[in-house]
């Protein structure tokens, strides 16, 4: 059992506070920085990025469009403009390289809410037995894609999508959006551990699929140094992804975390006093060596 009161102390002692929170700080800067880029226009009158995460235009040149929402629009029968198609291709290429769920941990504003809920769960010692499968998000994803086909009234998912609602709320006006955000927060805090991002969110599931072959991966390259403190498992939002890479040496499993569930958030890198983890690339040989059957057996779903 990991002692939650001393969680991260070893890492801070070994590396100093800044280095022990390096990627966390950078992620927050990224999340807030992206919001700031969208907000300079409406607040200061300096337009850098217009629109929101669904579709945006940077400096009147660079279009970026969310592939999940555009796919829903296409399924409900729309023919997108060229700018949207270019925007989608750029986004797909980016996440194809850096890992789809980088969207979740480095871009999505809801991540800050659910991370806070996770942190509070640890601080307050809240334990609930989860009833929701981590695969439920794929069912949710299927639902978001089926609804535009069968129900008239278009992109139904966008009526309640907390991801786009929160971002749009901050950039365009909140209204009662805080109710949705609070619901996600309380759900994660009191009902299910990592309930929203890790089990239900279809947006995350979509990006998960995009980045399933991504080049940028977290690598347990230094796994021989692991002292079994288990703190990485505590802070990881998708803890089942760690075990094969960290503990699979004897089975000949690559030290690269290959599960596309991994959000590349880098918390494991921060929290590890022994510097076991680092960002790295995925090589073709690693893909081959990692027999998915073997990995599946070692993934422990929580």
């Amino acid at each position, binding site marked *: 059992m990991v002692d939650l009161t001393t969680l991260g102390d070893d890492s801070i002692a070994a590396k100093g506070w800044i280095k022990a929170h390096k990627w966390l700080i950078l992620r927050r800067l990224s999340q807030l920085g992206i919001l700031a880029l969208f907000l300079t226009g409406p607040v200061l009158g300096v337009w850098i990025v217009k629109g*929101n995460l669904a579709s*945006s*235009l940077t400096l009147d040149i660079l279009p970026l*469009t969310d592939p999940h929402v555009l796919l829903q629009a296409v399924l409900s029968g*729309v023919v997108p*403009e060229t700018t949207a198609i270019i925007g989608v291709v750029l986004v797909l290429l980016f996440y194809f390289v850096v890992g789809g769920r980088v969207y979740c941990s480095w871009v999505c504003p809801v991540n800050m809410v659910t991370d806070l809920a996770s942190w509070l769960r640890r601080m307050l010692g809240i334990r609930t037995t989860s009833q929701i499968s981590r695969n439920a998000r794929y069912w949710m994803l299927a639902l978001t894609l089926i609804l535009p086909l*069968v*129900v008239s009234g278009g992109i139904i998912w966008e009526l309640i999508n907390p991801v786009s609602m929160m971002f*749009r709320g901050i950039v365009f006006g909140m*209204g009662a959006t805080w109710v949705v955000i609070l619901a996600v927060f309380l759900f994660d805090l009191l009902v299910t551990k990592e309930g929203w991002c890790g089990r239900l969110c279809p947006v995350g599931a979509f990006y998960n699929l995009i980045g399933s072959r991504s080049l940028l991966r977290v690598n347990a390259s230094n796994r021989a140094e692991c002292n079994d403190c288990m703190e990485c498992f505590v802070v990881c939002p998708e803890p089942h992804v760690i075990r094969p890479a960290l503990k699979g040496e004897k089975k000949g499993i690559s030290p690269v975390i290959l599960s596309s569930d991994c959000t590349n958030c880098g918390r494991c890198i921060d929290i590890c006093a022994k510097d076991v983890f680092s960002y790295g690339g995925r090589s073709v040989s690693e893909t081959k060596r990692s027999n998915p059957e073997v990995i599946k057996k070692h993934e422990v779903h929580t």
Partner: protein
Amino acid sequence: MSDTDKKHGMNRRQFLGNMLKTACGVGLVGMGLGIYSNRASSLPAHYLRPPGALPEEDFLGACIRCGLCVRDCPYDMLFLGEVGDDVATGTPYFVARTGPCEMCEDIPCIAACPTNALDHGLTDIEESRMGLAVVVDQETCIAFHGLRCEVCFNVCPIRGKAITLNMQHNVRSGKHALFIPVVHSEACTGCGLCERACILEEAAIKVFPTDLAKGELGKHYRLGWKEKEKAGKALVTPDVEHKYNLPEGVRYDLQGEGLIIEEKPEETPFSSNPLNSLNSGFLDSK
């Protein structure tokens, strides 16, 4: 059955059970969403969509709620629906009374739309149909009281076509005219400038979504005179000029002027104009 088989059987049962649970849960969410979407997709009458917006149902499927149209509107009159508003969350709208469409010639909101939810085929803003203006209250519109206003007529960007003034007799005073504003759907874009300009506390001319503002004639209706015009002749009974038993020099025009007395000039030495006789001596002496 060996132990491992038993174990596998349990696992399979568990697996199927879990999957069923998840599927049912997600299915319920889907049903809830479907029902909610029915309520959430009804557009209140005073919320108007930007120019070029597809019919509401298609629009809700095409609009990805990005807000680029809102950002590119130079008059900042477009807004995105917020959670709790009566318009589908994240979709753009404007309210004519407080911020009507100023009808930019280059239609920047359409250019900004990445999905054709605002139809890029629309290039002439005068062809847009954001709604239809209706003079909803003839009891308060001061034109109907015989007062000169005509503000809606004058601010209309398609002046003289979308709103015309019909002159009618002012029965109250008996000697004045009423200048009644009349909206013509073939020209009105529904921009809402008239609604904003209306001088009343609550506008008497309002823009409604077209489907709310327009009636529709039964498909089987045929207007006889139009059919006749199209065919170039009467389609039912041939036109026979009606003969009336009238004295000589008198005609009756049934669909026009009514009774016409074709006066022949009377044979008299005197001019019908009295001035001619009064001035005759004066003119002669000159």
